[in-house]
């Protein structure tokens, strides 16, 4: 009963936030529209990571592999159709990029997901670096030369606003997917894997297939986001999509907001992006130090993230009453 009511409250709040976010560019200065793009992109990436990392407890350190594959495979497919209308190119790129991510993730999933904990995390970092190096050094990928992307915007609309709205659609779709997964049998199966994989198997959870499915879903979303991101930049090289800071941030968003929750990565992404781009925007020399300090404080002071901290505070208040 209360569960249903709180779920309804959350749905209403999310829809209101979605409408507010969609209208925000009307009042925001162009700089903040760009920051907003980055917040939405990061939140969606964080959510995609959380489908495997937050729900099933498999922390990938290599999400950038799929961002890169999505962007480069999609971009190369689009280049084949250089004469077609940009919107059609984009759709073809989307199909090619996500298909490549799905196939590669499915091939990697079974061997890599046999590893647990730190070994999985580091193996994924290795995977991301292998793809990055290959992308950069094999000529057909044009990783070091760079790849240009057509402007797919709508005439008359500021491209920054257009990409903002596109990222918003992507982020909302990711949130919806994560929410549907979280409340499904599949989602509960993933949670049980995070809690105790052997016991989950004993209860009949097909752990291998579930992990692989979560891995593929997470990879495909990352790939789609990578392609949109590439379009928003207009021109990318290996270094613009295969980034170690993306690998790290995908985790930090959940860690900062709350591991395993849906709101966690969104809050985490918003705070981190605003902090580094707005608050510290003028202190570039200070970025790395600030991020590092944030990580240290986070691990020591709020190991269960801001959502966990808030729950704890609310819980304490209730007890006092």
């Amino acid at each position, binding site marked *: 009963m209360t569960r249903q009511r709180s779920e309804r409250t959350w749905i209403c709040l999310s829809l209101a936030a979605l409408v507010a976010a969609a209208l925000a560019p009307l009042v925001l200065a162009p700089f903040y529209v760009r920051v907003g793009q980055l917040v939405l992109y990061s939140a969606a990436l964080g959510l995609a990571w959380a489908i495997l990392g937050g729900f099933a407890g498999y922390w990938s350190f290599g999400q950038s592999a799929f961002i890169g594959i999505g962007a480069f495979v999609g971009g190369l497919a689009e280049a084949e159709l250089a004469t077609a209308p940009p919107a059609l190119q984009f759709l073809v790129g989307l199909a090619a990029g996500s298909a490549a991510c799905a196939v590669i993730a499915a091939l990697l999933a079974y061997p890599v997901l046999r590893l647990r904990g730190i070994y999985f995390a580091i193996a994924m970092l290795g995977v991301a670096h292998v793809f990055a190096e290959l992308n950069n050094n094999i000529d057909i990928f044009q990783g070091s030369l760079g790849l240009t992307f057509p402007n797919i915007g709508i005439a008359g609309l500021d491209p920054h606003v257009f990409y903002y709205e596109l990222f918003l659609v992507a982020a909302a779709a990711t949130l919806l997917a994560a929410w549907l997964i979280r409340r499904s049998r599949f989602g*509960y199966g993933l*949670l*049980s894997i995070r809690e105790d994989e052997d016991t989950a198997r004993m209860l009949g959870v097909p752990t291998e297939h579930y992990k692989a499915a979560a891995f593929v879903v997470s990879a495909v979303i990352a790939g789609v986001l990578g392609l949109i991101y590439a379009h928003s930049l207009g021109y990318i090289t290996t270094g613009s999509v295969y980034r170690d800071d993306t690998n790290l941030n995908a985790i930090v968003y959940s860690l900062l907001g709350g591991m395993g929750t849906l709101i966690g990565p969104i809050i985490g992404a918003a705070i981190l992006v605003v902090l580094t781009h707005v608050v510290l925007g003028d202190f570039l020399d200070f970025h790395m130090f600030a991020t590092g300090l944030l990580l240290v404080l986070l691990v020591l002071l709020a190991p269960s993230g801001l959502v966990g901290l808030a729950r704890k505070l609310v819980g304490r208040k209730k007890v006092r009453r």
Partner: protein
Amino acid sequence: MSDDPILRIEHVTKRFRGLLAINDVSLVVPRGIIASLIGPNGAGKSTLFNLITGYAPVTAGAIFYGERPIAGLATHRIAALGIARAFQIARPFRDLSVADNLRIAGMFGKSGARDVDATARRALDLAGLAELAETPAGAMTVGQLRRLEIARAVATRPELLLADEPCAGLNPTETAELVGILREIRASGVTILLVEHDMAAVMEVSDLVFVLDAGSKIAEGTPAQVTSDPRVVAAYLGTPEPAPAASAGA
């Protein structure tokens, strides 16, 4: 007893490198009873459970669940056929509530039509955990965890429940409660295979007892038959341990 046993173990052998853990064991568990597997430490009881649930592969021999050979199947497939296992050391999903623990078991476990919430509620009532439904499992006492472990196994809607020392470390009151729960589970039509060291509990609750020693089956029968078997007395009950068994027989 029926001619349609729920579990048949035929000439099963398990070797770990050089060590012979299970040596040519055969046994048949009829439907609807509580059968116990007893024997000194290291007799191979837990290994046998691991083999039945597909947690470890058999070296030789066959295991039939009903008519179906199950040796070599993946653990989750065996669970889907209707075999559940409750661990000796409870392994709850600590961050999840008691209700969610049971709900997950209800969602998976034996395949087929299901009503997850009803199953979870029944398991909750059976284990007497209804008031604790929304408590995180990590915050419960050892006795409560043991009952949750049994309840979660039951929530998978098994036909055969393997319970690994459910009474170990419990005080007499808690043991009595657990024995009551086991009887209720049997009454609902589930067959139970029990590994237990508490002889009083075993003798009280079992319909059939198998005795393992050093990886071999040395006896089987009703509790009375087994306790009077000289080989069992020599191998197991003859050690300074038999006090509880004697008092149970009295």
